[in-house]
């Protein structure tokens, strides 16, 4: 009891292709140890949003059970990743005039200015997911990281706000609650991914993270160490599969398999005119598939996706500041040649995201697909300040859990 036990942090991502639960232990010294992972094929999700509650609940249950078994813990609460076309973001500025006589900014002033900044107009059906503090501006001078103790008369702060439609955000929460679990916090998956794959140096130099998921493509931009821009495009790997199925006139399942085995982001000269013999299905005769067409359909979709993101960043004036390059995550990052394509569109080096600074199952989890799950755990760890040690309720709950485990053991 005197040595505070590590806290359990669970990240749950209900994705379009898979449900993924990652269990981490957050030690009081700040270390994060990944001890469990559960996965299930997702059946109830389209474009990042749940369309079939029952199927989604089953898949979540499977994934969590697998994670519990692996980590040998009981999961009570999760950090839930959310995404979807309804998510939107904007930057907002708050102002505050310092009333004190000595004109030195106090922590209370900071609280006030952040409070002022949070008073932004929002449609009634929308709910704020994140409010991320960017820079402080003291008397018109931008780029102040910590204004406490500085003399000044006028304090401003920039916030980045991510919000979504309330009812659509509640859908995954309902699914999780139906399994008698608590949701600690909602996290935008793009943000979670960026937490898993970026180092502080990357954020300082300017970086774009693109999570090429199955249903949606999330992107996040950091420059000067702060979150500048987030976005979601409801186009993903499923669209590539669907395009292939339409263009080559094959079933979705076959299109998916062909995408994984013969896909690519470019039409190389050597694939021109080549065909693949598709083995027969249901007694149908063998059918040749033109590899060049496959690549062309795929390249068109991927190019369009990156083009849209590049266009958005250009509008936001961020395209020139990606000095640390582009980091690609998600299943789409496995497409051969996608880094070259990204390099072409963003004019910056592109790499596949590596999850960094995790202990435990790190080697297994160092895959672009798991970046979001790991990022959720990291987000949870940030939210859980361990300096105070676990609160008494948590301790009580933990004791009860242990008792229960003992009760169940025989």
């Amino acid at each position, binding site marked *: 009891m005197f040595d505070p036990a590590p806290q359990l942090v669970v990240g749950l991502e209900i994705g379009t292709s898979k449900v993924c639960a990652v269990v981490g232990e957050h030690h009081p010294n700040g270390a994060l140890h990944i001890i469990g992972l559960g996965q299930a094929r997702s059946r109830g999700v389209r*474009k990042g949003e749940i369309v079939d509650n029952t199927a989604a609940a089953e898949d979540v249950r499977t994934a969590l059970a697998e994670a519990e078994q692996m980590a040998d813990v009981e999961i009570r609460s999760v950090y839930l990743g959310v995404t979807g*076309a309804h998510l939107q973001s904007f930057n907002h500025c708050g102002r505050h005039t310092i009333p004190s006589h000595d004109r030195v900014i106090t922590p209370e002033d900071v609280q006030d200015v952040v409070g002022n900044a949070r008073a932004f107009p929002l449609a009634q059906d929308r709910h704020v997911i994140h409010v991320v503090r960017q820079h402080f501006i003291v008397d018109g001078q931008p780029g102040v990281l910590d204004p406490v103790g500085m003399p000044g008369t006028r304090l401003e702060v920039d916030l980045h706000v991510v919000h979504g439609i309330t009812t659509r955000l509640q859908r995954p929460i309902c699914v999780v609650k139906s399994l008698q679990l608590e949701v600690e916090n909602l996290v935008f998956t793009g943000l979670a991914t960026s937490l898993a794959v970026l180092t502080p140096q990357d954020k300082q130099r300017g970086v774009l993270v693109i999570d090429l998921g199955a249903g949606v493509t999330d992107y996040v931009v950091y420059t000067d160490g702060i979150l500048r821009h987030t976005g979601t495009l409801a186009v993903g790997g499923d669209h590539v599969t669907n*395009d292939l*199925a339409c*263009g080559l006139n094959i079933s979705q399942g076959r299109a998916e398999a062909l995408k994984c085995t013969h896909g690519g982001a470019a039409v190389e000269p050597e694939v021109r005119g080549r065909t693949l013999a598709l083995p027969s299905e249901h007694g149908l005769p063998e059918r040749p598939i033109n590899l060049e067409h496959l690549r062309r*359909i795929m390249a*068109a979709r991927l190019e369009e996706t990156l083009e849209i993101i590049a266009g958005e960043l250009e509008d936001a004036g961020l395209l020139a500041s990606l000095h640390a390059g582009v980091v690609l995550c998600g299943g789409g990052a496995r497409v051969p040649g996608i880094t070259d394509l990204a390099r072409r569109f963003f004019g910056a080096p592109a790499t596949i995201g590596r999850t960094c600074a995790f202990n435990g199952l790190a080697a297994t989890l160092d895959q672009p697909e798991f970046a979001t799950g790991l990022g959720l755990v990291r987000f949870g760890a940030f939210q859980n300040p361990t300096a105070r040690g676990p609160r008494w309720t948590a301790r009580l709950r933990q004791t009860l859990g242990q008792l229960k485990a003992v009760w169940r053991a025989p």
Partner: protein
Amino acid sequence: MHDTSPFPAPAAPPTAPAARVIGVGGAGIQTVEHLLRLGLEATACAAVHTDARRLETCALPNRLLLGGTVTRGLKAGDPEAARRLAEAEAHALRHLAEGADVVLVVAGLGGNTAAGCAPVLARVARENGALVLALGALPFDFEGRRRLAQARAALQELRTAADAVIALPTQRAAALLDEQTSLTETLQIIDDLLARGVLGLLRLLRRDGLINVDFGDLCQVVRGRQAESCLATAEAEGEQRAREVIEKLARSPLLDGGRALAEADALLVSLTGGPDLALKDVNQVMDQIHRVAEHAQVIMGALIDPALGRRLAVTVVASRHLPAPAPEPEAPPATASEPPPPRAEFPTDDFPEPSGPGRANPEPTGSARRWVPPPPELTPEQARRLLADQVAGPTGRRRRRPKPEQIALPLQVISKGRFARTEPTVYQGEDLDTPTFRRRGIPLN
């Protein structure tokens, strides 16, 4: 230095329209010279410049130096000066265009001479009764913003002066080339690209085809629409030539990477092949064109040119409606109260008789010859109404009654596959759930 002698009768058979290619300014002359090397008859070409030295070295037999007495052949300093020179010697320009049914004005619009003279030449030739196509090459990015602005202004003037204007974005063509390509090579390649386009156009106009396209059809595509037109030619050889030709066209920088095809309102496609041109080739090409340009009115032609051997050449002229142009003082004049200054220099009785001295066959075989009436006497009230009409629709001189158009509903519903019943992902008016290759018209065959 003035070569003012009238042109000899065109050598083409009497039914073929006489075409004349006139290069204006340095770049235009360069392209026309290249055309000459590609096998165009010298009598059909002419050069106009303000630079005596450039004209000395020019390979073309018909040359016209503008402003020989004013600038002493030392070029014009700015487009306005060049324009004044051209206006002063309009009669010489008129002689150049004499006897031609189709006049192609080729100019690099970044240059002063071209920017100033080309619109005047186009106007004079058109008043002579010829159909005027202007091919204006826009300058490279590295030539600076001023030249680009000048070229755009000249392009706008050409649009009002000529029947059709085809802008050739050289920068886009250059972007396709390797960075290591030397400058001379780049210029040559672009000259070649332009020259081949012109040659394809001339071929289309001159030879009798199996499925004939004449310049009447060309007029229908390019004339009177105040349209933005583009022109491209591609050639291919071998088994898959039909497919390759379409691919080349779809990638052509002159067609904006195929986008111009998809957005075209009217399209003229001319296939030229050797004696072995097969129905299959025609079918494949037209099938793809129809698929890419769904909404366009497509006019097609096919002709045999033994010189091509086993190659297949496809020339495409695509036109797109522009939104109604803003009323400009230089728009075709309809007001008697204030005729524009250039027109004032030509007394109306100077308009040519229907049988010009340079015509071999004075009978009206082609329909391009037309007499342009002098501006009518109008009260200011009438003039204003007429101007308002012009702004609303096509230019008054060629105003046509808008044809009642029956819109065909798309028979083939594009399936969205597994996203058919989900909320559509719409980005800037495009439904992203529809396969990209369908929306962009990427050919699969």
